[in-house]
């Protein structure tokens, strides 16, 4: 009886340890190698760039009277969600030591562009159509910067010296 109880106790401890370990591992950010991180970063920047370009395209089409207000609003909301997803994707990945600087650049630029898309969405919901052209120009510049960053991420970081 005692032996069986001891066996159950050991099993319970083992299961608890396993669950704790799994939980800890699940909570810790992933630590990919340099190449893997760069691929993830490229993907996030590319997704963010697509969302910004879509928001810009929709705003410009509205300027030409080609989309409905509700449609424009939905496209902007979807772009904002896309930005948030891109930011989460890369933000939750632990960058390798050599990529710390570019990690800051990537997350910084995505956050900045996300703020811009949110500003555009607010303007659209408030029907401030006189601001659309200027916002579209700013979105175009943000997309351009993101695309340059995406190109840069194709190569390993430049080492100093």
């Amino acid at each position, binding site marked *: 009886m005692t032996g069986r109880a001891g066996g159950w106790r050991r099993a319970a401890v083992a299961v608890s340890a396993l669950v704790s370990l799994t939980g800890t591992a699940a909570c810790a950010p992933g630590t990919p190698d340099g190449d893997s991180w760069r*691929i993830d970063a490229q*993907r996030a920047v*590319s*997704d963010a*760039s*697509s969302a910004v*370009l*879509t928001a810009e*395209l*929709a705003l410009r*089409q509205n300027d*030409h*009277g*080609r*989309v*409905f*207000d*509700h*449609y424009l*609003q*939905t*496209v902007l*909301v*979807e772009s904002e969600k*896309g930005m948030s997803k891109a930011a989460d994707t890369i933000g939750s990945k632990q960058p390798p030591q050599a990529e710390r600087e570019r990690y800051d650049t990537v997350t910084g630029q995505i956050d900045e562009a996300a703020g811009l898309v949110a500003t555009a969405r607010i303007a659209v919901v408030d029907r401030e159509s006189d601001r659309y052209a200027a916002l579209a120009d700013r979105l175009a510049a943000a997309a351009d910067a993101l*695309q340059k960053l995406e190109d840069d991420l194709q190569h390993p970081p430049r080492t100093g010296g």
Partner: protein
Amino acid sequence: MKKFFAVALGILTAIGGFVDIGDLVTNAQVGARFGLSLGWVVLFGIVGICVFAEMSGRVAAISGRATFDIVRERLGPRVGMANLLASMAVTLLTFVAEIGGVALALQLVSSVNYLLIAPFVAFIVWLILWRARFSVMENVLGLCGLTLIVFAVGLWQLGPDWGSFTHQLVVVDKPGDEQWRTWAYYAVALFGAAMTPYEVFFFSSGGVEERWTTEDLGVMRANVFIGFPLGGLLSLAIAGSAAMVFGPIDASVDTLGQVGLPAAVALGKIGLAVALVGFVAATLGAACECGLSVGYSIAQYRGWQWGKYVRTQVAARFHLVLALSTVVATMVLLTKVDPILVTEFSVVFSAIALPLTYFPILVVANDPDYMGEHVNGRLANVLGSIYLVVIGVAALVAIPLMVVTRMGA
């Protein structure tokens, strides 16, 4: 004249009913990233769906029974169960995606969150499945789905380089910045989207609903061999429009709102409005077809009375399955799962389930006990066998490609 009208109506509804949320999303995604360099997969998939839809339609017309009604009897309960589980799982997943697609399309019109719209859409779908006559449902939604022709008009208006498009279609190649494995993943997804199992399920059971006989074989073949390919051309038009608008700015397509933008760019608000009608009709029609297919598959396997051609009380268990599957699909959507992601999964898993769906059709269509003199000819068997090999390869590589490419990243 009446027969001509019936043929024309059948072809038009086949064209309008061909495109669903999987075709809309996958073709736009692929068009934006790969241009028309994967267009040949769509064409290849259309020939495949025509081959097997003709077989299953013929089985329905000759035997008076839906193909899968016969599968269990002909191939035994094990194969029948494997067939049921595989095709029903994919059809249910597609059902979730289609209801989500209708809700997303209505969100584009109203800017009300799709999660609030989804339960109403599900209620409408259930109401149609319960009350609407089969022919009315098929014809009205199929004809409204024809409005997706706006993408073909829009593509023409956008003025593409047709020579370059043709070159992309006939030469197996990919854009320089894409990897072959990503190209292969999208090829499998497009193939799965073109050959979705529920389409054949619905087509064969629909033949029984409409009481096809040997005399209807001509009309059935006209629907399949004219309607389906023309419907497939709409898929190519969606891909071409996305290639024209999103390709040059190097943006990917991830939302239904983006799928509609080329219509707005080309034709303005009128084009966009027509496209939105097409989105709603295509996804609502496909949702009804998926819902019915779930009911058909379970009822036919269990040997219950099924179909909309009998009174509701007579096919109570069939209607209960329709109601329950609608509830399940809605519950899945209300977990806030992204309907576009569900769509992406459904087309890839569709490719995995294809062998279990299409192999039994080939067996039954070759059985003289059921088909008499109308068994498969040499051409149907050669094409069917070739497609089964391709389907098998697609099913084997689908999951590895999904993992390796991180779903086409």
